[in-house]
């Protein structure tokens, strides 16, 4: 299979981007205050990462939104084995965003376990394009 990136651009291709370009991960906005993009139900306010047309909880209409950058760790771990092309260590955590859904994030420091109840802030994306979080007090 051949790469689909244009040879005329300098843009670095994402290492793990499949040729068809579908990326199911949550989108993170650019800028100094990045935020996770999703939808919110206009009837029951349920937040969803997927770009759904109808709320999976109540069936109500949704509108696009961004969520708070801050959140609380539900739980986290550091994976110490390769996952496909990814090399360990890999810090992974479920983050409950303050006004939003539970999102799987990467710890900015791949060696550091993000512990349950720790406060974290979204700092952007990893090199591989995953939402990246740093614990409050951790240098960024």
């Amino acid at each position, binding site marked *: 299979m051949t790469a689909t990136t244009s040879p005329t651009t300098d843009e670095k291709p994402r290492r*793990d981007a*499949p040729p068809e370009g*579908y*990326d*199911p*991960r*949550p989108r993170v906005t650019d800028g100094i205050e990045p935020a996770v993009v999703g939808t919110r139900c206009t009837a029951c306010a349920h*937040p969803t*990462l*997927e770009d759904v047309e109808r709320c*999976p*909880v109540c069936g109500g209409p949704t509108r696009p939104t961004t969520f708070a950058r801050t959140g609380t760790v*539900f*739980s*986290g*771990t*550091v*994976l*110490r*084995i*390769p*996952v*496909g092309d*990814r090399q360990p260590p*890999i810090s*992974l*955590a*479920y983050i*409950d*965003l303050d006004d*939003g*859904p*539970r999102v*799987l994030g*990467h710890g900015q420091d791949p060696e550091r*376990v993000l*512990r*349950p*109840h720790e406060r974290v802030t979204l700092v952007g994306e990893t090199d*591989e394009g*995953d*939402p990246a979080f740093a614990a409050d007090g951790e240098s960024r």
Partner: protein
Amino acid sequence: MSTVVRGVGTSAFGKQSHRGAPALLRDAVTEALDDAGTPTTGIDAVFAGTVFDGPGTIQRCLQTLGIVGVPVVTVENACASGTTAFHEAVEAVRLGRYENVLAVGVETMTHTFSSSIVPEDTDREGRSGMAMPSIYGMAAARYAAEFGTTPEQLAAVAVKNFGNGVHNPRAARRRGVSVEEVLASRMIADPLTVLQCCGMSDAAAAAVVGPARNAPDDVTVRATALRSGGLWDHRSTKVWGWDVVHDTAAAAFETAGVGASDVDVFEVHDAFTIGEVVTTEALGLAPLGEGGRLAAAGVTTLSGRSPVNPSGGLLSRGHPLGATGLAQVAEIVWQLRGLTGARQVDGARLGVVETMGGGAAGIDGNGCVVAVLEGAA
């Protein structure tokens, strides 16, 4: 009329990629058919489970046994694929569609993967590197923080199950371990070490299901239940998988008219030590947060009040996804017939099988099956 398991069979479990799915499946199905007293020409329909083995695998295997010209339905339900096939076979008999139904599962993990399972890249979390050990590592970390579940309590599950597996000639790993050895082994996903994670394994397992026929070795299916997980999101206070196991078990127990305390022997999904802790809680063997005490206190050992995983579990067998659930069914059938030698639970009459599988982000598990089986009085 009640539905019974007439016969069961499995291949050996272990890394045996040179054998391929057809030979493994023949081992399991031939044993199950002989056990049931059913000729290959007597099978009316086949429900099969596999996750990663390729399109047409089941028909490719079955033709080598001469099982052709019948309905063959292959299901994929992650780790619960084999038990989902079993559930569908039981339901087909119960509803009168067929009389002799083969449930079979196969997985050649070492053919598909060079080391561990690579998560699905069309899944939002799989694409982010969420492998199965990290899901369970997070559950273990949450239990440590919320309930004080200790590394030693987790290790006690591995000590128990590997200890039982020593007596299972079909297990992939037959060596006892100590708590110290478990905790000193290589870290995979904090706080889970490698001796708390099931290994890669190739195998097949099968069961023949039909209406009751007054055969003394037949095992009655008191109930099976199957459901997918609910939404698992910021509203969920329990760890991943707890609710779907609880709700599926509640449905199966209600149909069977029994409770967890009535059950003599369990085979549950211990892909990781914390999985057994969470599952035994969700089945009702301990209050929320106290499942860590069960193995350490001896409640779930062979001679304990509620023996869990006398076969050695997934930790000892390894985890060939499609085969696992039917291997659990086979172990419970053998236990209820009193055939398991040094790993026998004395006088076991009522047994439970539980399998829960996942991988799809946002829900509390792709699927869970709980079956309640009863031996002859």
